[in-house]
C-alpha cells in the first residue's frame, strides 16, 4: 500500500496576512508525517506527528494559538483513532498542556477509557508526567485580540470565526500506512469566546474523527455544533461503505450539513484503497497531502498545487 497523509489547518476564515503562514504550516506538518510513513511507520504515529506540529505552531487554533473561551482561558479538545481496532482516545476542555493530541493517545493506550474531560484529564496528564505549561504560553496576541473583540455586546463569535475575519477552527490529519492501517486525529481550541466547558465535535468519536480500516478515515473542521448534529465523520464513512468515493462522500455529507443544520465546514478523508480528498463548504481551508512522493496543497476552493517532495 502506498502510504498517504492528508492534513488540514481549519476551515474558518483566515486574514490575508496569515495566508502564507497557514499554507506553509500544513505542508510542513504533512511532510513530517510522510517521513514517518516512508520509513514504514504507522498511520497512528503519522497523524499524531502532523497534529503535534500544528499544535506547536501558533498559527492554528490548537495547542499554542488556541482561541480563548469567554473567560479568557484556553480549553482544548482532541481525539485520535486507530482504524485497525477502532481504539480511540480523546480529551475535552483540558488546560495547561502543550499537546492535547499526545494526551489523547495516552488515554487510548494507557487507560481503559476513551475520553477524559477537564479536571480528570489534567490529573491523568500529571500522573503520566506530561509537563504542565503556563496558560499564557498557549495564548498569542492574535487570540487575545479576537477574544476582546468578541466580548463586545452584539458581537457574533460564530460568524466571526467562520464568516468574518476570525480565527481558524481546528487542525487534523488522516493517514493510511504501508500496512493498510488508517488513522485520524483532530485537535482544537474550540470556538471563539465559547462558554467555559463548551465541548465541540472534536473529542466526540464519530463527529470530530472516525477511522475504520474497512472503509477509511476522516477529520473535520468547521462549525462544531453542526458537525455534532450530523455526526459528520461517521456519516462520511457510511457513504463510503455504500460505495461512494471519498470526494462524493465528503461533498454529500457537507452539503447535508449545510441544508439540514445550516453548518459549513471542511473535511479530509482517505479510504482503505488510499484515495484521498480535502473538501470544504467554507471559503478557504489550508490543506496538504503527500502520496507517492508528491506534495499536494491548496487553500481556496478548487485549488490544488503539486510539487515533488524531492524538490522541497
Amino acid at each position: 500500500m502506498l502510504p498517504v497523509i492528508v492534513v488540514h489547518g481549519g476551515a474558518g476564515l483566515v486574514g490575508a496576512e496569515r495566508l502564507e503562514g497557514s499554507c506553509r504550516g500544513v505542508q510542513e506538518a504533512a511532510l513530517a508525517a510522510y517521513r514517518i510513513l516512508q520509513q514504514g511507520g504507522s498511520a497512528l504515529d503519522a497523524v499524531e506527528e502532523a497534529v503535534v506540529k500544528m499544535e506547536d505552531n501558533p498559527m492554528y487554533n490548537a495547542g499554542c494559538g488556541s482561541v480563548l473561551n469567554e473567560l479568557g482561558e484556553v480549553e482544548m479538545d482532541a481525539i485520535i483513532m486507530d482504524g485497525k481496532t477502532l481504539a480511540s482516545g480523546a480529551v475535552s476542555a483540558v488546560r495547561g498542556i502543550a499537546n492535547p493530541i499526545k494526551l489523547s493517545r495516552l488515554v487510548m493506550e494507557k487507560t481503559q477509557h476513551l475520553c477524559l474531560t477537564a479536571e480528570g484529564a489534567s490529573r491523568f496528564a500529571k500522573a503520566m508526567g506530561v509537563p504542565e505549561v503556563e496558560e499564557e504560553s498557549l495564548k498569542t496576541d492574535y487570540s487575545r485580540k479576537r477574544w476582546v473583540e468578541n466580548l463586545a455586546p452584539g458581537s457574533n463569535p460564530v460568524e466571526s470565526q467562520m464568516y468574518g475575519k476570525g480565527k481558524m477552527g481546528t487542525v487534523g490529519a488522516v493517514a493510511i500506512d504501508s500496512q493498510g492501517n488508517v488513522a485520524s486525529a483532530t485537535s482544537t481550541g474550540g470556538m471563539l469566546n465559547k462558554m467555559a466547558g463548551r465541548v465541540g465535535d472534536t473529542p466526540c468519536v464519530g463527529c470530530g474523527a472516525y477511522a475504520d480500516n474497512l472503509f477509511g478515515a476522516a477529520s473535520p473542521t468547521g462549525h462544531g455544533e453542526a458537525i455534532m448534529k450530523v455526526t459528520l465523520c461517521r456519516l462520511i464513512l457510511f457513504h463510503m461503505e455504500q460505495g461512494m468515493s471519498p470526494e462524493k462522500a465528503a461533498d454529500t455529507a457537507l452539503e447535508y450539513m449545510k441544508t439540514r443544520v445550516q453548518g459549513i465546514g471542511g473535511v479530509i478523508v482517505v479510504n482503505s484503497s488510499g484515495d484521498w480528498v480535502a473538501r470544504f463548504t467554507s471559503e478557504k481551508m489550508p490543506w496538504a497531502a503527500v502520496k507517492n512522493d508528491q506534495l499536494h496543497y491548496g487553500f481556496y476552493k478548487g485549488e490544488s498545487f503539486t510539487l515533488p517532495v524531492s524538490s522541497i
Partner: protein
Amino acid sequence: MKPVIVVHGGAWAIPDKIAEDSISGVKNAILEGIKILEKGGSALDAVERAVRSMEDNPVFDAGHGAVLNANGEVELDAVIMDGKTLAAGAVSSIRNISNPVTFARSVMEKTDHVMLTDRGANQYADCQGIPKVATDELITEGERKEWEHYQKYAHSVKTLFNSQLVHDTVGAVALDCSGNVACATSTGGIRNKMVGRVGDTPIIGSGGYADNNIGAVSCTGHGESIMKVTLARLILFHMEQGKSPEQATDEALQYMGKRVHGAGGAIVVSPDGKWAARFTTERMAWASIKEDTLSYGLNPKEMFNEKTFRIAS
C-alpha cells in the same frame, strides 16, 4: 400519528434482588412519559419526563443512585436530542445536580452550544439557578458499600462490566402525535471509573441519536464499545438501508460484540411507530407503550403485555 414510547433502565447482569424494582422503575417511568404524549405533548417532553423519573429512582445508575468514580465522587452524564431539528444538548462530568437530563435540555435550548462539561457546566447550572443537591443525597448506602468493596480489589473496566457490575444507564425514545421523535439518556457511568471519564452517554451518535427521517435510539452497555462503533448512529444507518428497528439493532449489537467485544442494549422507535428493545447482555429492564399496550421485559426473549388504561386529562 399514534404515539409510542420505549424506556430502558440499563443493560447488564441485573441481580435478582433488584430485578423487581428495576421493572417497576421502568414501568413508572413509561407511565410518566405516556401521560404527556396522550395529551398531545412532544416527544422531547416525554423522554425528558421518563428519564427524570429514573434519575430520581435510586435503583438506577443515573442521578440518584449513580455509581462512584475512583475518587468516591458522583460525576453524571446525559444527552437529549430532538429529531425534528437535530438540536441536541449534552452534559458530561457534572456534579451535584439531581436531573442531568433536564440540564442537558437547558444547554440545548438556552445556549448556542450542544455540550458542556465539568466546571463550565456546573458554572452554567449555577447561573441558571438550577438547584444543587448534596453529593450524599445522590449516593445510596448500597452504592457506597459496593464502591468500598471494589476499592479493595482492582478490576479492569471490562472485567467489571462483564462480571455483574452495575451499568444501568437509563434512557427513553418517543414518537409523538405530530410525528416527531426524540431520545434521552442519562448515567453515572461505570463504577470506579477514572475521574473525568466520559462514556458513550453524552456523545451524540453513541449514547443516543434522533432524526425524524429515520428514528430515535438510546443505548446502554459497555460505554467504550458503544463509542467505538457509534452504536446509536449505526442502528439508524441500518434502518436507513431499510431494516426494521429490531433487525437494525440486532445487527448493530452483533457487530459491536464481534468487532470490539462489547455487550449492551438499545431501544429504538421509528417515525412510522415501530419499536424495539434489544440487548446482548444477560438482562435489560425495559418497557414500551403503544396503542394501549404496555410491554416490558427483563430477560432475553421475554415480553409481557398489559393493557394500559386511559389516564384522564
